[in-house]
C-alpha cells in the first residue's frame, strides 16, 4: 500500500494553504506530519482524502484517487479528523460499527464479516469494557481509544489521524502512539498529524515537516528534528537528546527573532 502525493496544493479563498507537496508514503510505517499551527498539516490530510479541492494528484497504489468513488476511497483510507465531535449520544459499540459503512452495499444488513471487524477493532484498542457506554460521556482517554476503534473498524490499508493526542495526559498519549505503531507494524500505512515532537521523534519511522504550506523536511526523526530547523520553523531553541533509548525534544525558549507563531 503506497500513497504518492504529486505536487499537491490547496488554496482556500486566495490564500495558498498547501504548496506543491510531493512525497511517497509507503505501507508498514508510521509517518508523522509535524509543523507549527497553520503550516497546512490538517489541510494535507484533508487533501489526501479529497475533503478540500486540491491541485496536483494523489496516487493510491498507482491509481489516481480522483478516479476512485467516495466509497472506494473510504475503504482504502480510514480517517480520524481533528477534534472529532459526536453529534448524537451513540453507544460505543454502535459508534465503532459506523466504521463499517464504506463496506455495506445499499440496503444490506451488517454481516458476520463486519461484526468480526468491529470485534477486532474493539479488542485492539481494548474498549470492550466500554461497549455499552454512551460515547459522549466518556473520559478523554477512553474517548480517544473509542474514536480510534471507529477508524480501525474500517480495516483500510491506510489510516490518517489528525492530532490524536490533543488533550490527552502523558499516559494516554503513550497508549495512543503505541496503538498507532502496532497498527503500522501490522502492515498498515499510518499517517499521524502531531504536535508533540517528543512523541513524533520516539514513535514515528519518518517525519514530514511542513512550514507555511510547504514541505521543508522529509526523513527520519533524527534527520528532520535538528536545532537549526526547529529554530527556523517553530522559532524555538530546543534541547534534543535521548533518555535511555528514547528520543526527547524539549522546547527551551522562543528564539529572539520576534516570531510569535
Amino acid at each position, binding site marked *: 500500500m503506497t500513497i504518492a502525493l504529486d505536487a499537491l496544493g490547496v488554496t482556500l479563498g486566495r490564500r495558498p494553504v498547501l504548496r506543491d507537496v510531493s512525497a511517497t508514503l509507503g505501507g508498514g510505517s508510521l509517518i508523522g506530519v509535524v509543523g507549527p499551527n497553520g503550516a497546512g498539516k490538517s489541510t494535507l490530510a484533508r487533501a489526501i482524502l479529497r475533503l478540500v479541492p486540491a491541485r496536483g494528484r494523489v496516487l493510491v497504489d498507482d491509481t489516481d484517487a480522483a478516479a476512485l468513488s*467516495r466509497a*472506494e476511497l473510504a475503504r482504502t483510507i480510514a480517517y480520524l479528523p481533528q477534534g472529532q465531535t459526536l*453529534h448524537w449520544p451513540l453507544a460505543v459499540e*454502535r459508534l465503532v460499527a*459506523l466504521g463499517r*459503512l464504506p463496506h455495506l452495499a445499499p440496503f444490506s444488513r451488517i454481516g458476520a464479516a463486519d461484526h468480526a471487524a468491529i470485534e477486532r477493532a474493539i479488542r485492539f484498542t481494548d474498549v470492550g469494557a466500554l461497549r455499552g457506554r454512551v460515547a459522549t460521556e466518556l473520559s478523554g482517554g477512553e474517548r480517544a481509544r473509542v474514536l480510534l476503534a471507529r477508524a480501525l473498524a474500517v480495516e483500510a490499508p491506510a489510516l490518517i489521524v489528525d492530532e490524536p493526542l490533543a488533550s490527552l495526559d502523558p499516559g494516554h498519549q503513550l497508549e495512543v502512539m503505541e496503538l498507532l505503531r502496532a497498527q503500522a507494524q501490522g502492515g498498515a500505512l499510518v499517517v499521524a498529524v502531531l504536535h508533540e515532537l517528543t512523541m513524533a521523534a520516539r514513535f514515528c519511522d519518518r517525519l514530514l515537516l511542513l512550514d507555511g504550506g510547504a514541505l521543508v523536511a522529509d526523513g527520519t526523526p533524527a534527520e528532520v528534528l535538528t536545532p537549526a530547523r526547529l529554530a527556523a520553523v517553530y522559532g524555538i531553541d530546543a534541547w534534543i537528546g535521548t533518555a535511555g533509548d528514547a528520543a526527547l525534544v524539549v522546547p527551551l525558549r522562543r528564539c529572539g527573532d520576534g516570531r510569535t507563531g
Partner: protein
Amino acid sequence: MPPPGGRHKRALVTLGLLLACVVAAALSVLVGPAGLPPGRLLAAAAGGDDWIARTILFELRLPRAVLALAVGAMLGAAGAALQGYLRNPLAEPSVLGASNAAALGAVVALYFGLAALHPVVLPLCAILATLVALALLFLLAGRSESPLTLILAGIAIGTMAGAGISLALNMAANPFAAMEIMTWLLGSLEDRSITHIWIALPCIAAGLALLLWDGRALDALTLGEDGALALGIDLGRARLRLLLGVAIGVGGAVAVSGAIGFVGLIVPHLVRPLTDRSPSALLVPSAIAGAALLTLADVLVRIIPSTNELKLGVVTAFVGVPVFLVYLMRERRLW
C-alpha cells in the same frame, strides 16, 4: 446496524408503535359528532344498506383517519430526518421553510379565490409553493454542506413566506376572507374527502421513500461532514434526496391538513429513548409514532367539548410545548 440484542428491541418497539397506530385509527373511525354506535358502523362496513352510516364511514371518517395517519407519518419522519441531517435536536420541517411556503401557496389560492374553483387547486398551489421554496433554498445555500447555511437560508425563506401570509391577512377584502385564511392556517382534517387522499398520499409516499433512503448518510453525519465524506457518503446526493423528500412530502401533507406544528419536532424526541439514538434507527419509528400521535390528537379535537371544533394545529401546539420544555430541562442544554 443494531447489535444482535438491539434488533429484537427494535422489532418490539416497531410492533408496539404499530399497535398504537391501529388503536388510534380505530378510535378515529369510531368517534365522531354523529355518535353512531360501533355496531352500526361495522354493519355498514360489512356492506349493509344503512346509507347514513355508510356515508359517514366512507366519506367522512375513513378519509379523515387515513389523512391523519399519512400526514402524521410524514411530519414525524421529516422531523427525524431533519434532526439527523442538521444534527440539531430542534429541527423540524418548518426550519427549512417548507411548511410556511406550503401555507403561503394555500393562502394565495384562498386570497385570490382560486380555491373556490375546484378542491384540487388549493393543495396544488401549496405543493407548487413548496417546490419554489426548495429551489430558492438551493440557490441561497449554494453548494455549502454546512447545516448552518441551510438553516439560515431556510429561516429566510420561512420568514418571507410568513410575511406573505401576514400580507394576505392584512389585505383581506373583508373579515370573512381573513377568517377563512386563519381557519386554514390553524390546521384541521375536518371534512376531507377521497380527493384529498388522492392528492396527499402520492406526495407523502414519495416523500417518505426519499427520506428513508438516507438513514446511513444520517448515521455517518454523527461524525460531522468530514467524517461522513471519509466514510464514503455522497453528501450532495443525500442532501438532494432529503430536501426533495421534505418538500414533496411536507408540501403534500400541509396542502391537505393546513399548518400543523410541533409533531415534526416532538415525535423524534419521544421516540429517541426507545432506540439506540442513531438517526437511522429513528426514521421508521418516528413515522409510525407521528401517525399514531396525530390521529389521536385528531380524535381529541372531536371529543373535547367546545362550541367550535378545536383545530388540530392548536391541540398539537398545546401538547407540543410542554413536551418540548421537559426535553429542554432534562437535557440542560442551551442550543
